[in-house]
């Protein structure tokens, strides 16, 4: 339970603006604007992380999502022609909306229906060191697998985009 009034106010402000930004991603016509709102959403989500006492994850979120993925997406948009920069919907708009609403309803129902085993503990103390420990002790195998995956993804991305017959 988080009941420090400052944090509560911060949470609601951040949460509302994050959801509004996410809605703008769905609503705006211009793909570049959508990326910008997406970056704002990422920053807002990082704010929610901070409220949830995960400041290290929040910083990584800003670094990876808002910085890297945002730039990557803008880049991808620029590599495609100007005519394709609208963010229009397909014919699946209505079914998609229905499905999304359904998911929202179910998750909300489950969230309120379930009896959660809430622990009364305080926020975590500084998490960076304990996260590092977790990565290198119990989760060392997944950690290494992720690093291999990142390497593979990097090579894969290079292979996909490079010119055929390019010797470099």
């Amino acid at each position, binding site marked *: 339970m988080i009941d420090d009034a400052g944090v509560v106010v911060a*949470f609601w402000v951040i949460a509302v603006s994050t959801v509004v930004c996410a809605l703008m991603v769905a609503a705006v016509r211009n793909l570049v604007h959508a990326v910008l709102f997406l970056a704002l959403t990422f920053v807002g989500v990082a704010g929610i992380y901070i409220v*949830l006492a995960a400041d290290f994850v929040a910083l990584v979120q800003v670094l990876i999502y808002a910085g890297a993925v945002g730039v990557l997406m803008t880049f991808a948009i620029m590599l495609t022609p100007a005519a394709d920069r609208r963010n229009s919907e397909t014919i699946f708009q209505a079914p998609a909306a229905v499905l999304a609403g359904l998911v929202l309803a179910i998750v909300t129902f489950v969230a309120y229906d379930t009896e959660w085993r809430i622990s009364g503990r305080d926020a*975590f103390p500084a998490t960076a060191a304990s996260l590092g420990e977790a990565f290198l002790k119990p989760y060392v195998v997944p950690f290494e697998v992720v690093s291999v995956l990142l390497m593979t993804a990097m090579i894969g991305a290079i292979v996909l985009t490079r010119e055929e017959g390019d010797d470099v």
Partner: protein
Amino acid sequence: MSSVVLASVSLENVLVIGALLFSIGLYVSLSKRNAVGILMGVELMLNAVNVTFLAFSRYVESPRPLDGQVFAMFVIAIAAAEAAVALALAVAVYRHRETVNIDEIDLLRW
């Protein structure tokens, strides 16, 4: 302070925010025409999942409460890799088909 509605943030509140983000992401990824737009929806959903992970990590009784954060980190790492590959795919598809509109890319082979 208790007289004010919403004076505290409960697990359910965070879960609903996560659900909202997830459903927006789902809508975006299902309805958008542009491949990059779809990718945005996917990223939104991954973020929503992360919010949920961290919410459980913060609130729920557990012997190893930090596991939620560790999972979130893994999700971020994999999402970064996925974004790189997906955008490379989008660029590659554009190069072959001169479009990134999903409804025009309807052949399994070209």
